[in-house]
């Protein structure tokens, strides 16, 4: 599969960052003007926000794509008593899908002297944060095994400056294949979509191969690390006559569930992904961890670290909830009848 180049304009994230910088400058200017206009007595009271702790938030995508996750994160923070603007300020850096920029953005946040660095949304983000600092506490959120990724010493005792939340999304890739096979008991070939740049891709593919062997099916791996290559995933699946397309767990895919759902419908390919956003946007099925829960826990951990707890003492939390979403409309469109075993297992059936 061809690896997509940088077709998206490079200047875009820079432009956003500049805009953000401008905004901050404007805020600063406004507050300075306000301070000059204020009587002396009030100045010290108003000067306090500058002493608020700062959370550096490293996002692999754009704020729009992170909207629901940010909401869950804020909810978690609020559970520990922190509200942005009142008790803390947030400093955001967005890679806007350009994962290679993550290390540089992480370094920027570390250099800005943030109190806590939050690196949610996958192993790439966590690894970039880890590379940026070994002293600033980091809270990650990812699917996969943080011990295997070299982020922490153990789940119970992370040891270093990192802790966080993992979901079972990566472990359950094989279940996606199982569900797909449940839907197509006769099919012998399934396509697997993988992001070759993902740190967890290897373990997932090994996992899937073993499952395929158990289930007695053949797998064909299709690589895509850019949205431009998405369409080819579906066309290739259709062309090879596979029963369906199984997506490995990868945030890049997850954040583009809408696009994937459109393409799946467009090409009439039965597809299962990790994110519930996919069936909600018209895709067939999803099986993966509850990202709202994992992002909420990330917020709780960020709050606890702000309160003075050490990441080394905070065990890595595993969000054990795995949810199966099925969109019956999509199934109908594909001309599929969903077997009762699947329906009875589904946490949510969209009709």
């Amino acid at each position, binding site marked *: 599969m061809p690896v997509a180049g940088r077709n998206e304009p490079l200047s875009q994230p820079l432009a956003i960052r500049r805009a953000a910088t401008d905004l901050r400058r404007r805020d600063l200017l406004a507050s300075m003007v306000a301070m000059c206009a204020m009587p002396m007595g009030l100045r010290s009271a108003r000067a306090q926000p500058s002493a608020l702790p700062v959370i550096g938030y490293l996002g692999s995508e754009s704020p729009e794509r992170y909207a629901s996750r940010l909401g869950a994160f804020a909810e978690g923070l609020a559970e520990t008593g922190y509200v942005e603007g009142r008790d803390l300020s947030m400093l955001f850096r967005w890679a806007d899908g350009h994962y290679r920029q993550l290390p540089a953005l992480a370094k920027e946040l570390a250099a800005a002297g943030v109190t806590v660095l939050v690196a949610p949304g996958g192993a790439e983000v966590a690894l970039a944060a880890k590379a940026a600092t070994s002293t600033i506490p980091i809270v990650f959120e990812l699917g996969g095994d943080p011990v295997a990724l070299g982020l922490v010493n*153990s*789940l*119970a*005792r992370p040891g270093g400056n990192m802790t966080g939340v993992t979901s*079972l999304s990566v*472990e*359950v890739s*094989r*279940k996606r294949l*199982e569900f797909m096979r449940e839907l197509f008991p006769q099919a012998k070939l399934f396509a697997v979509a993988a992001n070759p740049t993902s740190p967890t891709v290897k373990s997932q593919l090994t996992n899937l191969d073993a*499952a395929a062997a*158990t*289930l007695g099916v053949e797998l064909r791996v299709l690589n895509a690390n850019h949205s431009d290559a998405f369409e080819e995933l579906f066309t290739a699946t259709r062309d090879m006559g596979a029963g369906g397309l199984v997506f490995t767990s990868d945030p890049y895919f997850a954040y583009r569930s809408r696009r994937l759902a459109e393409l799946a419908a467009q090409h009439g390919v039965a597809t299962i992904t990790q994110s519930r956003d996919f069936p909600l946007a018209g895709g067939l099925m999803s099986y993966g961890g509850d990202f709202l829960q994992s992002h909420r826990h990330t917020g709780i951990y960020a709050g*606890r670290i702000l309160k003075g707890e050490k990441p080394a*003492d*905070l*065990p*890595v*939390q*595993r969000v*054990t*909830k*795995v949810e199966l979403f099925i969109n019956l409309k999509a199934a109908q469109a594909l001309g599929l009848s969903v077997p*009762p*075993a699947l329906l*009875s*297992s*589904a*946490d949510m059936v969209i009709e």
Partner: protein
Amino acid sequence: MVTRGPTAPRASLFTKYFLALFAAAVGPLLVAGGSEAWFGYRDQRDRLSDLLDSEARLAAFKIQYFLQGISDQLEWMVQLPWSAGADERRRLDGLRLLRQVQPVMSLRLVDGAGRERLSVSRIGLNRVESGDDYSDDPAVIGATAHGAWFGPVIFQGGSEPFMTVAVAGNRSATGVAIAEVNLKFIWEIISAIHVGRTGEAFVLDAPGRLVAHPDISLVLRADDASARPLQLLRSAIVARPGQAAAGRDTGGTAVMAAMAPIPMVEWSVIVKQPVAEAFGPIHAALWRTGILLVAGTFFAALLAYWLSQRMIGPIHQLEDGVARIGAGQFDHRIRLATGDELERLAGRFNRMAGELAVSQERSERIGRLRRFLAPQVAELIERSGDERVLDGRRVEVVAVFCDLRGFTAFSAQAQPETIISVLGAYYDAVERVIAMYEATLTSFSGDGIMALVNAPVACPDPAQRAVSMARAMQGCVQGLLVDWRAAGHELGFGVGLAMGPATVGRIGSEGRLDYTAVGHVVNLASRLCASAKDREILLDRTVARAVGGTVDLIELEARPLKGFTRHVPVFAIDTQRHEVLGDRASAVIGDRELQAGAAADSGGGTIR
């Protein structure tokens, strides 16, 4: 201000009163406050014990219900015996169970022979009819033996608490359902338990590992060492069953805790509350009581001080007043309005001061009266309290004048000391006689002395008394003259008496008071005295007539007297006949016998 004695005991009495009153007020206060605090503390402890105990039992019940619920769900899976082939229905049931019972991560069904027939999982692949042998699995053995089996807590990945629950059907043919249960779901139960503001519950398994805690990270740490304080807490509770025990939690905070067991899994649910919070209200109450006690003590001190002052103040006033009165300030009055015995005492002191003042005034008056009255007369007048007798009036009096002959010549020659000593002895002698006859001494003037009889106090037969007195005077003074003449002083003594009406009364100012008589009779007596020779007692006609029967008189030749136009008839007492008496009188002057004689002369008369 009158100075008090050097050993003023006021301070000590004040201290005694103060301490007694203070103790009386503060003692009950302390006893009441202390006992209230103690009983309040005990009640609070009992209440807390009950509260923690009931919360622990409720939590234990909920967790037991949770585990029982899973075991009940599993029982549905082992109600029908296994058939030979794959059982699609059972697979669906298994998937539905996973869907229904969230804590179950995987379910394995084993048939009567111990072969795995079905395995469904949320993470791993499902398997049908794998045929793996599980007959030696402790879950299968346990469930077959007891119907339901709860395995030990296992920390997956060294972090996540899991437990195996196995349930066997009522026949061996139905096999065993084995579920892997994620114990993190107990968190929802345990975190819902709140005692007070920060009180919380946690669960320990039999070996003392933390199974559930509101802070899930403590459980995920799966660290025996960090759970050590909680284990100690459990031992403390077990050591004293039915009572909340004190201990420390993982953060080192002092807590009170109670425990309830979950027998089916041998877990313990422990509910704890920080001591500071649990006893917060009673501590606040203790503080309040303490502050009230301090305020009460302060108030009691003030009250005791005030009361002591009030008791000591009057005593002080009394002491001061008594000191003033003692110093002669009889007009001082002790003003006390305490309405008690002290006021009565002050009244007595005031009365005493009044009486003292009266007494002093009286003695002063007597002193004044005694200047011209005989002491006993003065006493009588004073005792009667009526001085009107001294007021001016016209009465029949006998005026008696006496003086020394040759005194002018003597005083010109003699030394002043001699003159004064002669006069002193002379006055002394004459005054004694006057006092003895209760006559009134009206004036001294050089060697001349004037006395009145029958004024201001009337007496019977004043002429007789006056004559007796004159003779006694002569007797006494002649005795003195013998010595003076021996010393070479040529002095003599003469007396003149006249009787008649005269104006008598007090004259003079407050500081100097005299009693005197004015009238013809006074002049006459004075002239008679002047013309009397040594040893001579001259009388006018009125006296002579009054005493004529009792005294031998010699009528002398009428003689001209200064201030009298005609010759005045003059009588002298026959001194020859009375020489002996005069001598005797001079010899025993001041003697009791003479007094008796004088009394006989006066006829025992009384004033008025």
